[in-house]
């Protein structure tokens, strides 16, 4: 997907979802807890919208919005994989983010969550899974171009992910 199309689709989608202007850029200014919750809510809404449109059956909307995002048997992600909208890497990204989001919302003690501490608490395998899943963007050459990300800056971001 070229850069112009990516920008256009993301803007179009934000408009369809009636998001406040600057919502996506604003996410980066949030604290880490809010960032995870809002990013997950955003992705879930995107997935729901896309599924409703893909099925071309508006009556399914009430069912689809109530489906759990990452239920391993009948979640939204499963539907999207089944109809070819999501591939393995995308599924992995969403599952990892869902797992993190669920850990955060189910324990009030996590309100002060931050990535740095979270990463330092992971063992080597967990850290690798976390980094690989959440740096899903790195496969997108146009995105790298758009944000002027060289291989070096991608590496820095990935290293940043692992602390």
């Amino acid at each position: 997907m070229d850069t112009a199309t990516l920008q256009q689709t993301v803007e179009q989608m934000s408009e369809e979802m009636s998001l406040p202007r600057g919502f996506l850029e604003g996410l980066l200014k949030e604290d880490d807890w809010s960032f995870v919750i809002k990013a997950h809510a955003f992705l879930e809404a995107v997935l729901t919208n896309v599924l409703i449109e893909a099925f071309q059956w508006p009556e399914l909307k009430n069912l689809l919005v109530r489906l759990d995002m990452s239920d391993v048997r009948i979640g939204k992600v499963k539907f999207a994989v089944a109809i070819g909208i999501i591939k393995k890497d995308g599924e992995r990204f969403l599952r990892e983010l869902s797992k993190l989001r669920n850990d955060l919302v189910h324990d009030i003690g996590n309100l002060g969550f931050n990535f740095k501490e979270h990463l330092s608490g992971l063992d080597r395998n967990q850290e690798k899974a976390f980094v690989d899943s959440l740096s899903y963007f790195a496969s997108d050459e146009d995105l790298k171009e758009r944000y002027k990300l060289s291989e070096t800056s991608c590496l820095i971001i990935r290293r940043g992910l692992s602390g």
Partner: protein
Amino acid sequence: MLNHTKRAIWLSLLHFTGIIYWRKEVGKKQLLLRLLTQEIGGVQSNPSLKKDAAKSRRAP
């Protein structure tokens, strides 16, 4: 200081959103194709539907 983790997830979020919108069209086509295939298969395996289909083909 730039939060690399947040930035990486944010970039992945953009990438995901762009790609999923593009693939949605592919998904729609696959679903339509499957429905059509099932419909054709249903007509072929059901004798009465087969007769109706033949009749409608003959109709002016």
